[in-house]
């Protein structure tokens, strides 16, 4: 173990891995990992009851550093693997960490169907507006007119509003925050772990080395300052004049409601079918 004072975050890190971690200087992924660890620690959860699943991408490197049960899976299929884990072990808290390209482009289908089923997963979607790991290609959330290596003259496509997609697909907990608002993020992660049903937290994060450099956003502190100044809480949106809200990031819990959860429904169906002893009376549903 490295010779460092043991704060709560350091107790949850895997010290046999190479530190400092692989992320670039100023990348928000470390901040988000810290918030996840603080949320887990403040809930006093047993480490053996937590699984962290990820796909491929910069943010999907997080399970390498956190000392809980983890699974690093195929590109875009993190939610599919997590669904399997949750169905087999319904008592476990399943956290899915994916990026914007991982979850909305390659794994978009899994996202909407997990939201529709309302299976109890906590999806933390790290949205850095670009495919950072592979060299800065255009992702579905790259804003209009933003520059990436595959759109050197500006992106001509409109970007995805991920929270609206999840709301439309029927997710029962949807929240949006930024990497600057750490305590808020920690509270949302905690709320999503307590929430019975599918929860999606979109975290707007900074990629200062690729997205920031291509779009002349400055360094990490400048991008974080932009998050602070260009975001409004949901509770203030109605009170503010329209021109002050337009084009800004709306933070807050956009939906939180309770509806039947998939694994509970499945267990009830299983109990009912076992009671029948294999013979159907045609009234299962």
């Amino acid at each position, binding site marked *: 173990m490295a010779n*460092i004072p043991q*704060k709560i975050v350091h107790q949850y890190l895997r010290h046999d891995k190479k530190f400092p971690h692989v992320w670039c200087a100023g990348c928000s992924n*470390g901040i988000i990992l810290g918030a996840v660890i603080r949320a887990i620690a403040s809930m006093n959860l047993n480490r053996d009851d937590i699984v962290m699943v990820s796909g491929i991408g910069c943010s999907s490197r997080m399970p390498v550093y956190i000392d809980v049960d983890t699974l690093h899976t195929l590109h875009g299929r993190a939610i599919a693997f997590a669904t399997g884990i949750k169905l087999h072990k319904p008592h476990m808290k399943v956290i899915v960490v994916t990026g914007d390209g991982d979850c909305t482009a390659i794994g978009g289908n899994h996202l909407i169907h997990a939201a529709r089923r309302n299976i109890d997963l906590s999806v933390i979607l790290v949205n850095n507006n670009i495919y950072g790991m592979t060299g800065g290609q255009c992702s579905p959330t790259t804003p209009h007119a933003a520059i990436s290596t595959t759109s050197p003259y500006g992106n001509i496509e409109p970007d995805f509003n991920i929270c609206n997609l999840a709301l439309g697909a029927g997710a029962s907990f949807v929240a949006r925050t930024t990497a600057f608002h750490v305590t808020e993020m920690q509270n949302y992660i905690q709320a999503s772990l307590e929430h019975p049903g599918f929860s999606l937290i979109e975290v707007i994060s900074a990629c200062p080395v690729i997205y920031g450099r291509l779009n002349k956003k400055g360094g990490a502190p400048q991008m974080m300052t932009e998050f602070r100044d260009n975001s409004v809480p949901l509770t203030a949106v109605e009170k503010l004049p329209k021109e002050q809200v337009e084009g800004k990031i709306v933070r807050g819990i956009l939906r939180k409601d309770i509806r039947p959860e998939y694994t509970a429904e499945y267990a009830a169906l299983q109990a009912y079918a076992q009671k029948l002893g294999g013979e159907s009376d045609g009234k299962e549903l």
Partner: protein
Amino acid sequence: MSNKVTKDRMGMIIREEDAPEKMEVEATEVSAPAEKDSPVLIYYNWCKKCGICVAFCPTGCLGRRSDGSPYVQAPEKCIHCETCDRLCPDFAITGAKEK
């Protein structure tokens, strides 16, 4: 570079310099010797000099050296808000002493 090659139980090749015992971070330099009683501890081996802690320190307790790394310039100004602790992407700074 050594040529010694071993395999783990899955059959993956492990080079000697990547073995876990070689990955340990060496004894970490904690601020400067005179700053041992400072409220903020910085682990320079993990720090990537991104400047976030200095930019968002609310009281100006932290300063930045010419190479970009942070240092405690005014320890008496620290209010133990843990902002640097929470915003550090590298887990390389702790904002308050453990009680």
